[in-house]
């Protein structure tokens, strides 16, 4: 590999930029900690965080899998329920005026503040965590999908009516495929919100998960273990986001191929 090649690769590839910036930041962090030597309770070094992870990797992995499964299940429920709700809202004037109005109104409430209510209703543990995650994730999915279902070219609908297309054909062959790009942008926000919801759920409902680990480590002033959990959450969030991105590329080649310049 020549320097010219590396330079070109760096210019072209955004993901490489991200990796380089991350590595650079970690190195800088390590160097700063070694030079200034702050107490580990304020800022542990990356090497110390790594060591803490290696000390009890299975505890972290187990809790990470718990948070992951809460997030994934909440996300799946939000997508399924969200799409059904959105189709109902677009098809029925009544649902639009009731459910959609309510959704829009509740959406402007800082929903995280409602999390403790779920503990009262559903008790501590997994179901409360799941409920909080669904509550956060479902809003962007429903709202985006409704917009997508509505944004059909009026002349396409004229054409369908002129050829006496059935209601089913209009929703199934026009509106839903037309809404997929918006659904996916809602899903990208939704997956992040599902993770936030899972963590908040673990904060308030306790039990298991990385959020719960953060809380217990904080109680023991074990900043290093807090950081292990945070790093794992960051990695998880990134992977989940890109998983949705890959799904979008596979499901919507007509959309993504237009958006991505072919270089």
């Amino acid at each position, binding site marked *: 590999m020549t320097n010219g090649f590396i330079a070109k690769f760096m210019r072209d590839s955004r993901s490489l930029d991200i990796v380089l910036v991350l590595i650079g930041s970690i190195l800088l962090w390590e160097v700063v900690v070694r030079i200034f030597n702050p107490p580990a309770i304020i800022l542990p070094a990356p090497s110390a965080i790594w060591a803490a992870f290696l000390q009890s990797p299975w505890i972290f992995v187990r809790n990470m899998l718990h948070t992951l499964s809460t997030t994934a299940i909440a996300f799946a429920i939000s997508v399924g329920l969200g799409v059904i709700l959105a189709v109902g809202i677009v098809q029925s004037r009544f649902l639009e005026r009731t459910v959609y109005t309510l959704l829009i109104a509740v959406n402007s409430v800082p929903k995280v503040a409602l999390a403790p209510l779920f503990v009262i209703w559903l008790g501590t543990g997994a179901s409360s965590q799941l409920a909080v995650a669904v509550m956060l994730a479902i809003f962007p999915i429903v709202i985006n999908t409704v917009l997508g279902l509505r944004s059909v070219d009026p*002349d396409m609908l004229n054409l369908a*009516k*002129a*050829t006496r297309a059935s209601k089913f054909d209009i929703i199934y062959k026009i509106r839903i495929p037309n809404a997929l790009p918006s659904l996916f942008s809602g899903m990208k926000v939704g997956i992040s919100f599902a993770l936030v919801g899972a963590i908040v759920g673990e904060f308030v409902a306790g039990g298991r998960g990385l959020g719960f680990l953060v809380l217990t480590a904080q109680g023991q002033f074990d900043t290093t273990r807090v950081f292990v959990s945070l790093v794992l959450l960051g990695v998880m969030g990134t992977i989940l986001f890109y998983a949705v991105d890959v799904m979008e590329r596979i499901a919507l080649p*007509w959309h993504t191929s237009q958006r991505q310049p072919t270089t």
Partner: protein
Amino acid sequence: MNMIANRIADTYLQVRGAGKTYPSKHGSVVALSDINLDVRLGQFNSIVGPSGCGKSTLLKCIAGLENITSGNITVSGKPLIGPPDRMGVVFQRDVLLDWRTILDNVLLQAEFLGHPREQYRDRAMQLLERFGLKGYEKRHPWELSGGMRQRASICRALLCDPDLLLMDEPFGALDAMTRDDLNVELARIWQGTNKTVIFITHSISEAVFLADRVVMMSRGPGRIVDMFDVDLPRPRPLSVRETDPFGVYAQRIRHHFAELGVLHE
């Protein structure tokens, strides 16, 4: 059959005293007023007029997409209730579905009409070939130029062999050369069929080039101000546009709109 019966049978589409008023927040809008139009079976009608004169509204009323608020419309002698049978429509925007291939977009017409797709596959391929789209049937709309996309949307309208073809400024968004090509292709495909066409356009020369009859509309309120038959032999080469008789027809339209103070083009 006697002469009179023949003449009645000949009138495919009849519009009598049709008016259309849209309700709106700032009072109602009279989009059409007292429209009278008799269209013969197989006749190619161009409707030309300034924007806002109700051309699209008239087309939508004939297509059964909007209800007229006065008068009546009959197709084949039957009062219009909803979209007529055996009709194809083409709009200025091709409204092809990006997630479908060109072939699947054309077959959409059969799906919507509730016909089995497979039965129309061969016909779809023939139509695509006749419009120079052979080899593109597996492509997606976003891989094609504007002219090719509009050709595909015409194929879709023609798939189930309609008797009535309604076209609302179908070539309005295309560049002049593509437009000329499509004018020639449309005339070629239409000729020898018995299809009745209502073709809306902004372009005076396009209106004359294609039509058996030109209908001129004006606004305030939307109404028909003049109509005349175009007596030029077919098939018409593009060069017919440089001939004197063609010039006389075009001048007649231009003169009319100049008088009404709405000259354009």
